[in-house]
């Protein structure tokens, strides 16, 4: 036991607090400040190699690293769950390198790093939500030239974004885009909300928490400051709809949280459970209290 803690102390000494060196963190903080000043604008930053592959959330980790302070309480989720590989490894990474307290409770956390979900529990002021972003450019698959998309953002030429939604309706009869649904931040920049389900889009609007987005491979940071207007793009006759599977969670019985579909038997029987594990636990607790 003694041996172990000694080793852990050693690890902490080898790495600077939260892994990145102070100058790098300063550089990222500058990018973050700029991003907060211009909501939805993609700020380039010099992304570092991290001790894990691209696609594991290197952008989010760098942002978290730059924001962490020793008294922070960290929560890491992957698709809403606290106990999936990605979440567990990132949480362990910061426990090891920053020695910060961790939690699974959304309401207790001061900094939440997330992949592909926004927690169901309403976020509060002084909480920071860090998103891991694979592709920060919402226009990427519509206009491959980065020089051109930058110009389009600068001049607010977003007709093309609507072409994508038009194509959706023409093909499927409704807006099929279900995740990474484009948003307009503060009435200005069209922004990629990262691949969260569009069910979560309304939670971004006027949120009291700070929302930070980090894309490691793409070397971009953007942000939505607290209480910022966030509008999901739509047509007058095809308004935006936040949707989810129309079932109840088979664990906690909640019908208003976002559900994961799980195939539970070889003959294809399905079950639906909350994707937000913390919320599911809370609801189960509440239910058993009611029964008592």
């Amino acid at each position: 036991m003694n041996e172990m803690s000694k080793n852990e102390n050693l690890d902490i000494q080898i790495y600077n607090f939260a892994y990145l060196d102070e100058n790098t963190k300063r550089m990222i903080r500058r990018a973050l400040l700029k991003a907060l000043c211009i909501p939805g604008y993609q700020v380039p930053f010099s992304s570092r190699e991290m001790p894990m592959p691209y696609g594991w959330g290197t952008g989010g980790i760098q942002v978290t690293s730059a924001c962490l302070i020793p008294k922070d309480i960290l929560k890491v989720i992957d698709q809403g769950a606290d106990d999936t590989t990605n979440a567990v490894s990132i949480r362990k990474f910061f426990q090891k390198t920053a020695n910060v307290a961790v939690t699974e409770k959304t309401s207790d956390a001061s900094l939440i790093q997330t992949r592909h979900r926004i927690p169901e529990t309403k976020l509060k002021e002084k909480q920071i939500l860090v998103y891991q972003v694979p592709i920060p450019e919402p226009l990427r698959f519509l206009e491959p030239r980065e020089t051109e998309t930058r110009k389009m953002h600068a001049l607010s030429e977003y007709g093309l974004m609507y072409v994508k939604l038009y194509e959706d309706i023409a093909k499927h009869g409704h807006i099929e885009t279900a995740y990474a649904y484009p948003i307009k931040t503060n009435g200005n920049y069209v922004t990629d909300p990262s691949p969260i389900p569009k069910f979560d889009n309304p939670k971004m609007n006027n949120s009291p928490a700070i929302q930070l987005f980090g894309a490691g491979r793409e070397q971009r940071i953007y942000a939505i400051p607290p209480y910022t207007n966030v509008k999901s793009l739509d047509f007058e006759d095809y308004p935006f709809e936040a949707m989810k599977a129309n079932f109840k969670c088979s664990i906690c019985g909640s019908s208003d949280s976002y559900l994961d579909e799980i195939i539970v038997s070889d003959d294809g029987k399905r079950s639906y459970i909350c994707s937000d594990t913390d919320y599911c636990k809370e609801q189960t607790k509440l239910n058993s209290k009611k029964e008592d």
Partner: protein
Amino acid sequence: MKQNFLFQASNISKYYGQNIGCKNVSLDINPGEVLGIVGESGSGKSTLLNCIYGNLEVDEGDIFLNDKSKTILNFTKISEPKLRLIQRSDLAFVHQNPRDGLRMNISAGGNIGERLMAIGHRNYGEIREIAANWLEKVEIDVNRIDDKPSTFSGGMQQRLQIARNLVTRPRLIFMDEPTGGLDVSVQAKILDLLRNLVRELGIAAVIVTHDLAVVRLLADRIIVMQNGNVIEAGLCDQVLDDPQHKYSQLLVSSVLQV
């Protein structure tokens, strides 16, 4: 300066390093008028067209547009956002190769709708209806509205490109060899269509071509270019029937007669 002109370019010059793109070219276009620019390959036709459309920065000269609200804008002075807005609303550009002017992986309806959405249309039903109308106007089966241009023939693609450009009712349309690369019967059909649309909507047009038959059919006036210079200008029939410059004479006499 005349007050009722639509578009005016004065003393445009464009150099590519030591080489001349076009030199000292002046032209003006009245509302509803079709101007043809002819000349051999490399004579500066396309350079001139791109300059006056605002795609290429000119080295000398001024370009004026009398916009919808009767304000005279100088292309060489206005800001880029303003220029791009004008290009989307008042002007249009038809490329020789429809692949340059269309989005090949987006349906025909989406292609026509893009310009509408770019100027602020946000009603799907409306956009679709307008797109369907335009398909009809350019003689493409309305059932093909959700098909991608890559499934269209060359002629259909070109007609789709024309529809996509005309949908926002520009007042001046620039065309770079609109019928190049198409077979003769399809060419005739597109020319016919263009002539009707231009006359019907009262759109002015600048057509760059090396095909004298095209200008004979469409243009009111033409300018003949050689080595970046305008060597002859005048009414279309006048220049083609009685060319004065040696090169114009050569050009007219080298048209194959069937």
